[in-house]
C-alpha cells in the first residue's frame, strides 16, 4: 500500500484514460482510488481529484456538457470550493470548463481533425497550488490526442487570466487554434487545473516523453498541502 496522497480518479461512461491516470499516479507514489460517476461522495481521505480523458457521454451536445451534471460532480465541486486540488485532463478539462470550475471553453480544432502527437508546452505561471516545483518557461513534452482542444476565451477574459497568472501552460507552437496557444488554465484560487495534453501518458521513458511527471507531481504536491477541508 502506498502512503502517498489519496487521489480520486473519476470514471464517467465513456472515460478511457482512467486506467492510465491511476497507473501513472501509482507510479509516482500516490494512492489512486477509482470513483464511479454515480457516486455522491468522494472516498474518505481524498486529497486530490483527477477527471481523466475520454469521451464522457459520447461527447453528445458538447464535450463535457453532460458529464457536468453527473452526481459525482457535486462533491467534486464542494471539494474544489474548499481548496482541494482538482486536475482535469483533456475531456476532464472540457468538463471543468462546462461546469464553470475553469474559465473558457474547448472548441473543435482549427484544422477539423483529431490530433495525436507529442507536443511541447511551456509553464506560463507558477502561482497555482500545482506549481511549487515548476519553473517559468520550463518546457514539457507531453502527448495530445483530441478533436476539441481549441481553447477559447474572449479578449477580456484572456487579459484577466494573464493578469492573475491563470494561464498555466501554452503550446510552444500553435497546434489546434487555441486562443493565445493556451494549453491549460487554472481557476482563480489556483487549486483547479485543466489541460488538454495527457500527463498520464508521459511518465515512463520506455513509452516516450516524460513531461507528464512534473504535472502529476504538481497535483501530488498540491494534495500534500494542508487545506481547510
Amino acid at each position, binding site marked *: 500500500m502506498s502512503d502517498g496522497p489519496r487521489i480520486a480518479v473519476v470514471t464517467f461512461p465513456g472515460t478511457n484514460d482512467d486506467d492510465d491516470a491511476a497507473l501513472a499516479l501509482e507510479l509516482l507514489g500516490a494512492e489512486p482510488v477509482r470513483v464511479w460517476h454515480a457516486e455522491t461522495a468522494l472516498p474518505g481521505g481524498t486529497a486530490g481529484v483527477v477527471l481523466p480523458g475520454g469521451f464522457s457521454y459520447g461527447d453528445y*451536445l*458538447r464535450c463535457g*456538457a*453532460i458529464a457536468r*451534471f453527473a452526481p459525482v460532480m457535486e462533491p467534486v465541486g464542494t471539494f474544489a470550493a474548499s481548496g482541494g486540488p482538482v486536475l482535469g485532463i483533456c475531456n476532464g478539462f472540457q468538463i471543468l470548463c*462546462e461546469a464553470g470550475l475553469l474559465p*473558457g*471553453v474547448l*472548441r*473543435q*480544432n*482549427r*484544422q*477539423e481533425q483529431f490530433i495525436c502527437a507529442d507536443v511541447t508546452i511551456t509553464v506560463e505561471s507558477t502561482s497555482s497550488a500545482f506549481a511549487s516545483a515548476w519553473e517559468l518557461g520550463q518546457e514539457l513534452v507531453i502527448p495530445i490526442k483530441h478533436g476539441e482542444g*481549441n481553447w*477559447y*476565451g*474572449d479578449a477580456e477574459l484572456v487579459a484577466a487570466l494573464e493578469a492573475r497568472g491563470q494561464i498555466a501552460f501554452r503550446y510552444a507552437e500553435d497546434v489546434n*487554434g487555441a486562443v493565445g496557444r493556451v494549453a491549460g488554465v487554472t481557476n482563480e484560487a489556483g487549486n483547479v487545473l485543466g489541460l488538454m495534453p495527457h500527463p498520464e501518458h508521459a511518465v515512463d521513458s520506455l513509452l516516450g516523453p516524460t513531461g507528464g511527471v512534473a504535472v502529476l507531481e504538481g497535483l501530488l504536491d498540491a494534495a500534500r498541502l494542508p487545506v481547510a477541508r
Partner: protein
Amino acid sequence: MKATVLIRPKEGILDPQGEAVGEALRTLGYAVTSARVGRLVDVDLETDDPAEAEAALAAMSRDLLANPMIESFTIEFEERT
C-alpha cells in the same frame, strides 16, 4: 407543446465546421460566401402554455443546450393547427 431550439456559433466565433462546409460547397461550384454550422434540438414540452414553455426553453438553453460563451440560441414554436 412542441418547440425547436436553434443553436448557432456566435458571430465572430471561429467555426471550422462551417468553414469546411463552405469550402466544400464552393468546390461543388456553388457561389457561397460563407456557411455556419449550428445544431437544433426539437423539444416536446408537457406544458401547453406558451409563456411557460418559452421561459423553460430559455432556461434549458442557458443551462445545457448552448454554451453562452460561444453559442447563441433562438426558440421557435411549431405552428398550432
